[in-house]
């Protein structure tokens, strides 16, 4: 496959991110105005300097008008796109290509979601007419299938696996407690997590990311123009998006211990970025912790731990904020909730802060010691039938 990448051809020069949470008082338009204003101020440019916009949202609006209407854009191109939980990242990816090819000088990628207007627990349904035969499984149920499969394949005791799941939720809440933009800003004790009401399989409430509202945005220009806008741009090293054939659930050879789509997108991204040993080269990774067993499996699929060992590394603190490779230093989906269109850009926002040394109490020490790369990852769908996005950004051109 020819995935040539656009390494070091574009850079992020400004970013904005609203607070995530139950934003009853803010509409979709309000959130878009706020995150876009933050990004524009961060790059010190007016909105008319932006030539083209990519808006990511799954449930919160159709057509580019969802953005052009509140921002009163002056007759500019606005694409509205969706790719399940990788929607925000997808907006970013497409905006980058548009700038890299020279069609536009400056683009904005912006994501938004207001899940709290629906009034229901969990995610709303996606509504095309159907024949009624699709299993009505919730997202927690589909991802709960990972746990017994992993334990069986690697001979891990289910109690130990549950401990690792709990540790992941604990770590992410601990990080989120340091983050003024997070929905949940308190540490949560491990026994509270472990004993939370059951949702599906081994998952309790605290093993599941929440439902929230939020928005985030990024301003992108060609790499050679980056320093006109900021002295600390982030250069895009890799963008990979993989849509799997969705055959996992109907193929007896799929064993529910891995996301092949994630492996493919990580391999592609590392090749684009020239990364040989991600655990040694990355300062941080923001990964899609929709559920705790998901984050555990992602450590192996992203190459941060060898097969069958992620549970040990998790329990050892390898991925803690002070660990060898900080995973979800901002608190992850666990602390922010998952406003679907915004999450991918919220992850890039943490990379933006960390690599520029602006993360305050969450600042990762390895950045100052010379690690200059960050990874963001989203997956959307269910085990065996998903899409996966991986990006790598860095503070220097190679």
């Amino acid at each position, binding site marked *: 496959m020819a995935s040539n990448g656009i390494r070091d051809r574009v850079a992020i020069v400004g970013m904005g991110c609203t607070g995530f949470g139950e934003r009853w008082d803010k509409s979709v338009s309000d959130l878009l105005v706020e995150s876009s204003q933050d990004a524009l101020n961060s790059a010190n440019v007016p909105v008319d300097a932006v030539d083209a916009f990519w808006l990511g949202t799954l449930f919160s609006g159709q057509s580019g008008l969802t953005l052009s209407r509140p921002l009163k854009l002056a007759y500019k191109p606005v694409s509205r796109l969706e790719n399940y939980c990788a929607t925000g990242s997808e907006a970013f990816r497409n905006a980058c290509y548009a700038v890299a090819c020279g069609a536009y000088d400056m683009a904005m990628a912006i994501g938004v979601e207001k899940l709290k207007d*629906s009034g229901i627990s969990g995610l709303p349904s996606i509504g095309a007419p159907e024949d009624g*035969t699709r299993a009505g499984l919730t997202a*927690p149920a589909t991802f709960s299938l990972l746990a017994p499969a992993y334990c069986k394949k690697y001979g891990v005791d289910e109690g130990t696996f549950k401990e690792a799941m709990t540790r992941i939720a604990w770590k992410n809440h601990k990080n989120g407690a340091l983050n003024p933009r997070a929905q949940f800003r308190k540490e949560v004790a491990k026994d509270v997590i472990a004993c939370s009401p059951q949702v599906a399989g081994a998952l309790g409430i605290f093993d599941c990311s929440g439902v929230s509202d939020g928005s985030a945005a990024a301003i992108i220009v060609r790499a050679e123009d980056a320093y006109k806008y900021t002295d600390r741009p982030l250069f895009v090293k890799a963008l990979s998006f993989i849509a799997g054939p969705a055959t996992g659930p109907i193929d007896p050879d799929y064993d529910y211990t891995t996301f092949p789509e994630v492996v493919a997108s990580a391999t592609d991204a590392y090749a684009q970025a020239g990364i040989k040993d991600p655990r040694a080269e990355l300062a941080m990774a923001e990964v899609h912790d929709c559920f705790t067993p998901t984050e555990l499996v992602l450590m192996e699929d992203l190459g941060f731990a060898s097969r069958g060992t992620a549970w040990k590394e998790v329990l050892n603190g390898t991925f803690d904020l002070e660990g060898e490779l900080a995973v979800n230093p901002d608190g992850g989906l666990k602390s922010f909730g998952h406003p679907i269109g915004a999450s991918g850009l919220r992850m890039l926002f943490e990379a933006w802060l960390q690599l520029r040394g602006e993360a305050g109490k969450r600042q990762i020490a390895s950045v100052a010691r010379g690690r200059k790369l960050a990874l963001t990852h989203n997956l959307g769908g269910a085990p065996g039938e998903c899409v996966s996005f991986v990006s790598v950004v860095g503070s220097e051109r190679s």
Partner: protein
Amino acid sequence: MNGIVAYGAYLPYYRLDRKAIGEALGSGGGKGTRVVASYDEDTTSMGVEAARAALRGAPKPAPAAIYFATSYPAYLDKTNATAIHAALALDESAAAYDMLGSIRSAAGALRAAMDAGRPTLAVVSDIRTGLPGGADEREGGDAAAAFLLAAGDADSPVLAEPVGAASVTAEFLERWRVPGEPASRQWEERFGEHAYGPLAEAAITTALKQAGVTGSEIAAVIVAGPHGRANKRAAAAVGAKPTALGDDLTGSVGNTGAAHAGLLLADALDRANADDLVMVVSLADGCDVTIWRATAALARHRQRVPVAEQVKAGGKVAYATFLTWRGFLRREPPRRPDPQAPAAPPAFRAEAWKFGFTGSRCQACGTRHLPPTRVCLKCRAVDRMTPERMADVPATIATYTVDRLAYSLSPPVVVGVLDFEGGGRFTCELTDVDPAAVKIGNRVEMTFRRLMTAHDVHNYFWKARPLRGASST
């Protein structure tokens, strides 16, 4: 007249202890148990299960018509038998007709199948209950049975031939229900006994005369109908030996209305010896009597899971759950989106999959696909697929989970990832299971169910349940 060349009966899994009624309400209830159709069953889905039981095994003549009888149809105005037709994957040239509304409809369906000049499947099915605390709730039961009537041949011999049949009709108000009402009404019990008595005697006498036998030669006497005391009097009027009067299943199963005569006939056929005479008296708005002679072929063609085994199996359901399932207790729903009704055009396109559980097999590499698809998941060949019916293929649980958040009429939802014998994988709901008892490696079989009803549209599809029958372990 056609003879019975195949038969099957279906009892749902759940049992209500009658004393639980008394415990909850302070009165009512009684001894024994009654069978309860699950929240995901209706008369149509149970009819499918009984018909599958009848048609399973050795090849049989393809039914040229189905008659479906019930006093409690899932739909009015729309034919219910067409769903059964689709679930059995019958040829489009086979007719499918409903005979609806009353217990006697079942006798009519069976008689029409006997009189037909072509192989005909009679499917009888019912869900019976009444207002909480009443006799109908306590005495009722839910079940289905199916009989394939045909001329018989070497491959599919007659198992029971009709040697006498009689029918007596009268118009009188004994039991009735206006459509939309939750329960039936009855006139004073002694009136019914008075009205039925002579009707039963007349029909029994005529049938015996036609068959050229006396009552004492009948090996098994079956009397079924809504009026218990009239049934007892009719049984006594046959003049059969005491050993001919067996268990009418009202103590363990309940009175299954339109299905009951068929259920008891199936039970008798499970045990009858060659040349045994079985008399079925259906006492409902008149009297229909058929005398069947079992043939030597019956012993080699009995249904796979006998009625007695189905009666012994099963699990408990609590009274409050029973009331909820039957619509008498309106429960607080979860804060989840309303379930969507299936849309007619996609369901029409997917009829073979949705109703017939027919997947596809890639002719290029042999891989099975559930649901059917056009591009092979293994070899990526395009349009090299042939349809393959998977409804009767057993499967093993590869993994599973319990979903406590999903919408269900009876949470939690148990979902299994199933690997089918001979290939193919599919993920679907498990039913008739205790979530705590599900294990990887358990063997399951597919069952036709009504997943739910949304916006007055019934959503039919398939679930998996533990294999039935002692032979399955």
